[in-house]
């Protein structure tokens, strides 16, 4: 039985504090009904006695303390998965936005996934031909690896990523191949660039797009890469596909994380980002890989804008391309 509460006692940035609750679980999915009737989604960040701290994906504007209704849904954030997702466009939380039909779930999966057992990993050793001499020459992009691309003003990071996606699909013609694209806070034009490129090569039918654009709710970006990777894991490890995941722009993801951390009044680490930034990021990055005895793979291209890595200025673009891990 789902309980509904009307006991919001505090709103702080993207966070809500709800009192008088019982049976609420850590990380539980929350439905928030605004006085206007609009429904938002949120997630439990902390429970203590009869209080629950909820992070609201769509932001807290319009939330009114006495009238907002809160429903705890008794499960974590789950998305429906199916092969029909290929060729479709979703928002940052995994809801279709292309006017197509709802996805009929082959299975439901929690977007947090579970860590790959290090013992189950198989070492990436299959090269992806990218057609970029900077990558294919001395070093190589390997299936199951991560290739971070750092963007800066004037650097052709989007073109690079698009080209890798394109080339990789060409090489994989005989194999089942898919592109999962997770956009966090990028502009419409930037997103369109990828979409057009995927269309040009016909790869769009093999692609799943999750779009959280610059004018979409910022906190939703916390979920977007996880939604994208949950889809990728399904395609790779249950449907034997080679999946290329492009996540752009991870810096916007980090900023959403920072916003929540600041609202929680946590002690900031470097540059105001929370101390657990590294750990949090690795729960995303470490979802790339190959697994013993499985045909599929997840190769990841996270794109970060340079404003975050000023300190490591020795890493120029070509150098970061050499650092294929």
């Amino acid at each position, binding site marked *: 039985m789902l309980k509904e509460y009307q006991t919001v006692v505090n709103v702080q940035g993207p966070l809500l504090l709800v009192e008088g609750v019982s049976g609420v679980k850590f990380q539980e999915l929350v439905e928030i009904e605004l006085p206007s009737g609009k429904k938002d989604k949120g997630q439990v960040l902390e*429970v203590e006695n009869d209080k629950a701290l909820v992070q609201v994906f769509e932001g807290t504007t319009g939330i009114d303390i006495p009238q907002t209704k809160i429903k705890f849904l008794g499960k974590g954030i789950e998305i429906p998965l199916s092969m029909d997702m290929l060729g479709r466009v979703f928002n940052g939380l995994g809801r279709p936005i292309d006017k197509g039909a709802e996805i009929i779930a082959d299975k439901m999966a929690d977007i947090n996934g579970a860590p790959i057992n290090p*013992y189950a990993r198989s070492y990436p050793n299959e090269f992806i031909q990218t057609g970029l001499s900077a990558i294919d020459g001395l070093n190589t992009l390997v299936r199951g690896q991560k290739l971070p691309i750092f963007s800066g003003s004037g650097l052709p990071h989007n073109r690079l990523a698009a080209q890798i996606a394109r080339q990789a699909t060409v090489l994989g013609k005989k194999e089942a191949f898919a592109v999962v694209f997770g956009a966090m806070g990028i502009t419409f034009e930037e997103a369109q660039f990828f979409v057009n490129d995927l269309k040009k090569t016909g790869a769009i039918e093999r692609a799943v797009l999750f779009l959280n654009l610059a004018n979409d709710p910022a906190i939703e970006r916390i979920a977007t890469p996880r939604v994208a990777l949950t889809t990728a894991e399904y395609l790779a490890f249950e449907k034997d596909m080679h999946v290329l995941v492009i996540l752009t722009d991870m810096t916007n993801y980090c900023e959403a994380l920072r916003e929540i951390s600041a609202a929680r009044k946590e002690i900031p680490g470097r540059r105001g980002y929370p101390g657990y930034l590294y750990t949090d990021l690795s729960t995303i990055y470490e979802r790339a890989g190959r697994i013993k005895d499985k045909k599929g793979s997840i190769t990841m291209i996270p794109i970060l804008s340079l404003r975050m890595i000023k*300190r490591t200025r020795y890493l120029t673009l070509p150098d970061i391309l050499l650092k294929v891990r």
Partner: protein
Amino acid sequence: MKNGKIIKVSGPLVVADNMSGSKMYDVVYVSDYKLMGEIIELSGDRASIQVYEDTSGIGVGEPVYSTGAPLSVELGPGLIESIYDGTQRPLDDIREEAGDFITRGIQVHPLPRDKKWDFKPVKKKGDTVEEGDIIGEVKETAIVTHKIMIPPGMSGEIIDIKSGKHTIEDTICVVQSGKEKHEIRMYQKWPVRIPRPFKEKMLPDEPLVTGQRVIDTFFPIGKGGTACIPGPFGSGKTVTQHQLAKWADADVVIYVGCGERGNEMTDVLQEFPELKDPKSGQPLMKRTVLIANTSNMPVAAREASVYTGITIAEYFRDMGYSVALMADSTSRWAEAMREISGRLEEMPGEEGYPAYLGSRVASFYERAGRIIALGSDNREGALSVVGAVSPPGGDLSDPVVQATLRVVKVFWSLQADLAYRRHFPAISWLNSYSLYFENIKGVLKKKVGEDFINLRADAMKLLEKEAELEEIVRLVGADTLSLPDQLILEVARSIKEDFLHQNAFHEVDTYTSLEKQYLMLKNILFFYERAKEAISKDIHIKTIRELPIVEKISRMRYITESKIGDLKKLHDEIDKEITHLINK
């Protein structure tokens, strides 16, 4: 057992009340998922618990089950060749049970229960034994003979001892002290946060030979010593740690992958069974224990992983072995501490790290050492500890780096600019230091050569001189340098490129014995001596640079250990070619 009740869940931290009777560091099971956790704060009947598994879906009011026992590891045959998570759960068994992804609430024995080991007693009925005495042996792998010891705190007379094949749970020996009879099995348990006892600690007096030239020749670590490798992103911390785990002349190696990448553990799992230990010729895996708590695994278990690792390491040390532990990266361990501390709302110190960061780091490295083990035979064991540190932006003022540098005796300073120029290992010859050198100098002289110490000093002087000269060149250009100074630049370049630079991925270059290191350095410096003489006879440096021996010196690193005699021949060739030049 009494149950507590959860009143708060915040990430890896769970608070429960009704916990009276529990002790600090007791293991508890949280909720009916039975998630393993450890009590890290107690006040009244309220306990703060760090949970080693994901706490999603856990809520207020759910039960907490006490076990009354502290977080412990199982120590006995079956450790070697294992791969464990941070709380000693075997990852291979977890995979068997749960599949490719780690799900929650899985409980598996750290050591195999059904496997039979051939126990060979070295004591007999009627012998009196004290704590730490070795009562028998098990050939655990082709490299490691596992010594079965009387657990700390126990002594008496052996009234029964059984040879032959047994599981670790069988009683293989009974010791009587007074009216009490102790049944001894092949394994014991030890709480990870308490250092295992020993009789006496001594200073390291022997080098831990790693086969890495810049380390062994210039900044050696002693057996039982401590070292740290701080370095920025991508500067070679992990590769260096892997190199040490592969080639260090330790009897047993414990590798703790602490909050780093999963693929790096796969790398080890793939390579180690293939690579041969230079000493025994056996696969390296047969002396290795892996602890893998990668960055995406629960953060509290990462905090525990270094303790799990070092307790296993101490246990092998107690058998009288030289053990080496590598932890990559201690920064991730410190970050785990910071995260838990933040959730506990403790007063933060620098950069949000807890105020006790320094003391935790210090007491971790204090567990290293060369020791006399418990037991009447006064055997000697050593535990060397090497920690990688990953300061953000490579900034050495980072609190974890600072806390580490206060306790460790060797500092291998990885430099971004060296890595950028692909000079690997990117260990700076100007910033690094070893405080063991004085202590182990004697052994090096005896083992390697009387003049090894002087060669090292001469080479270091040339490198320092080079740094000065580079400064002048920067200011006024190379033309102004005198011929002898130009020669110094030339020889320093050779020391850097032909000696210090070492490719971890080259079959031969990856490992260099001390003897070969000595001969290589000797040839370079002999070349310097002779070239100096030539220059004083007005022979131009260009002519010298064109001699075939220069090329040969640059290829010394590729000479296999079995052909080490070629290095001695090269010495004669250097002599011949330069003499020829002078006499021409």
